[in-house]
């Protein structure tokens, strides 16, 4: 037998196969790992109830998903990008440069961010100011900006339990971190007057100074996902983890959740806006693919339909806070309204 012949023929076959890649009939989705569970629930139900194949949902992060969406138009690019933060102008520019001009922005609902600790520990009632005072690199003590000296939660505020401060917060590549920075650290910074102190001290960007967390091992960035945070909290009963509401709801036997500003997180309190730490979840649709990929329009409409994304649907049962303005989204999706410029 001749290996040369065999090699030549396999090469020929693979080259032939490469040119004969057939039209894609499944929807390709990529992006945020926070949106992934919701997208896979919808994809599964879509595959079951429609004559179209189940969409393929990749994770990899909001930014990576939007970048893939903007790679261009064509069957070897993705159709929909899931995102746990809003698209950025740089993404839109990148899209436009690659010929992706019409993008639909679809808001699917809201996600709550909760602060949870070991179920056997004491209960906590926080305010954003507490978290800033516990984790910020610099805080105000006796009118002066100093390196954060707080060791115990009771140092932060006398009526908090006497427990060592230890927090597992999402790493900077997570969309969750942005919300944490914005709604907890910066809000807390303003609340306890550190922001004013930073400004008085002539900081160039007071908000940026507020977002700096201490580096003495009290605040630990978790670059993995919530399962890693849970494992860390399991190993350190003093530790607090930052989780998504749906993740907490699946692990209520191991975690207890702290109130924030006197409000316990739940789909109701987040929907009404009482609970302060939440964010909208999106997906972005490449309109140029809508008539090319079979079932894509149906998938998008099915995702935001009342039976999926409504307050009694499976997504809400899993922890998504349904959007009060869902009807508007449904209408926009039916009309394929592309998003306007960012405001």
């Amino acid at each position: 037998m001749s290996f040369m012949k065999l090699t030549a023929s396999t090469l020929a076959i693979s080259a032939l196969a490469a040119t004969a890649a057939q039209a894609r009939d499944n929807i390709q989705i990529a992006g945020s790992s926070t949106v992934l569970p919701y997208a896979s629930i919808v994809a599964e139900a879509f595959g079951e109830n429609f004559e179209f194949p189940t969409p393929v949902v990749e994770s990899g992060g909001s930014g990576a998903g939007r970048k893939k969406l903007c790679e261009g138009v064509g069957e070897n690019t993705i159709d929909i990008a899931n995102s746990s933060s809003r698209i950025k102008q740089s993404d839109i520019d990148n899209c436009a440069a690659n010929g992706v001009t019409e993008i639909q922005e679809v808001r699917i609902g809201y996600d709550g961010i909760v602060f949870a600790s070991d179920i056997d520990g004491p209960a906590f009632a926080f305010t954003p100011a507490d978290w800033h005072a516990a984790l910020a690199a610099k805080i105000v003590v006796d009118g002066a900006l100093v390196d954060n000296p707080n060791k115990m939660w009771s140092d932060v505020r006398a009526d908090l339990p006497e427990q060592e401060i230890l927090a597992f917060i999402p790493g900077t590549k997570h969309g969750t971190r942005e919300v944490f920075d914005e709604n907890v650290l910066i809000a807390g910074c303003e609340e306890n007057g550190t922001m004013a102190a930073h400004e008085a001290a002539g900081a160039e960007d007071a908000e940026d100074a507020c977002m700096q967390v201490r580096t003495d091992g009290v605040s630990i960035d978790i670059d993995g996902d919530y399962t890693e945070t849970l494992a860390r909290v399991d190993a350190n009963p003093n530790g607090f983890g930052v989780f998504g509401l749906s993740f907490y709801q699946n692990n209520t036997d191991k975690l207890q959740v702290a109130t924030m500003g006197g409000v316990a997180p739940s789909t109701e309190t987040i929907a009404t806006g009482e609970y302060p730490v939440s964010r909208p979840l999106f997906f972005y649709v490449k309109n140029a693919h809508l008539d090319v990929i079979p079932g894509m329009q149906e998938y998008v409409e099915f995702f935001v339909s009342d039976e999926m994304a409504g307050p009694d649907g499976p997504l809400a049962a899993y922890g998504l806070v349904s959007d009060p303005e869902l009807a508007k989204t449904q209408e926009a999706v039916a009309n394929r309204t592309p998003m306007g410029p960012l405001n």
Partner: protein
Amino acid sequence: MTDMPHSNGADGIARDSHGGKSLLAVDARTRKRNASEARFRLLGKIAVAIGVLALVGLLASILSSGLSSFRQTYIDIEVYLDPAKLDKEGNRDRAQISKVSTFGYKPLIEQGFMEAIEKSGVSLDGISEKEVAEMLSKEAPAQVRNFVLADVERIGQTAPFEVLAGGRIDGYFKGRVTMESAERDRNVSPAQLELADRLREAGVVKVRFNWDFFTAPDASDTRPEAAGLGVAIIGSAYMMLIVLVLSLPLGVAASIYLEEFAPQNRFTDLIEVNISNLAAVPSIVFGILGLAIFINFAGLPQSAPVVGGLVLTLMTLPTIIIATRASLKSVPPSIREAALGVGASKMQTVFHHVLPLAMPGILTGTIIGLAQALGETAPLLLIGMVAFVREYPAGPPEGFFDPAAALPVQVYNWTQRGDPAFVERASGAIIVLLVFLVVMNIAAILLRRRFERRW
């Protein structure tokens, strides 16, 4: 010579010609040497013991959390396929019937479950109807809907089904969920677990071997009990097929040429260094390469086993080339010289004599390379194979272009899910992957034992 036996001299005392010291009376230097040897042996034993302990620990933790995924809790129910709900027109038109979504099937199944409980005579004390319904897997409506759509004439009949129990109920029978944890768990109540106990005694609920774990596709976060490895196993099999078909002939051809025909010069030295280098390149680099060449340039589809296979081929090639060259080298030159001496051509020498003798080594190297490729996740991350895929790919060769997952990818995906039931699934998937790897490595050892010739 330190532990020479007692038989050196007739009188039992041996003397050397120089110092006249006895070999049996151990002197200081000998003692030192003996001690250092004993120390080394001890260290060696400790090293082995640490290795074995680590392996046992790893296996024990994986087996203890993963073996339960091979058993699954099922509920036997009979469902009346109500024509008033499923076929309002009454004309048994499949297109019409397929408009009824899984949401429409849910009440029928819940009714069937209630009837099954009634028939078994189990009491429903202290539990609401809603809680009873929650004990069923969310997969059940899809199962019944597919059954109806497969043959619409069954509408109007009462059909028996074996549906999955919910993930928490299943976890209870496997010890993952306890009465205490159920108190605090918002997804299950102790009343449900007590009912599950009674139903199991009555024979409505049963735990049996979980074939679906090997055949079913992945499932979403709300139904861990339905998640299986079907798509991942097919995807991995396709990729291994591609890797084998491409890398074995390419690798063997390259090494035969380099080893037997190519002149020894700077250029071939450079190639050799590069091949050794490639074998040590982090696998994610091949993923980046695959994304750039196969997807962006060649236009192959995302998430497809063909791209995964090509990327893993690139990764496996150096391993195979190095193993093949080593086994070609180990064939003694006398074989080649004898063949050339009786008038064989260079090519006849290689293909009739050298290659058959090197074959066991080549196959061993190939299998080890394949095993390495089977466990690889990083390069697949970039080419879109780390994904939620539920559709089975078609048969080969078209199936090579359909989206699929892979075994290690499935492990990675499951460890990221919120529901703790997926931890069990992930460990189960690791066991399956380990079994494949053990089988491949045993095959490599057997091939070597059987066919290898020592010179």
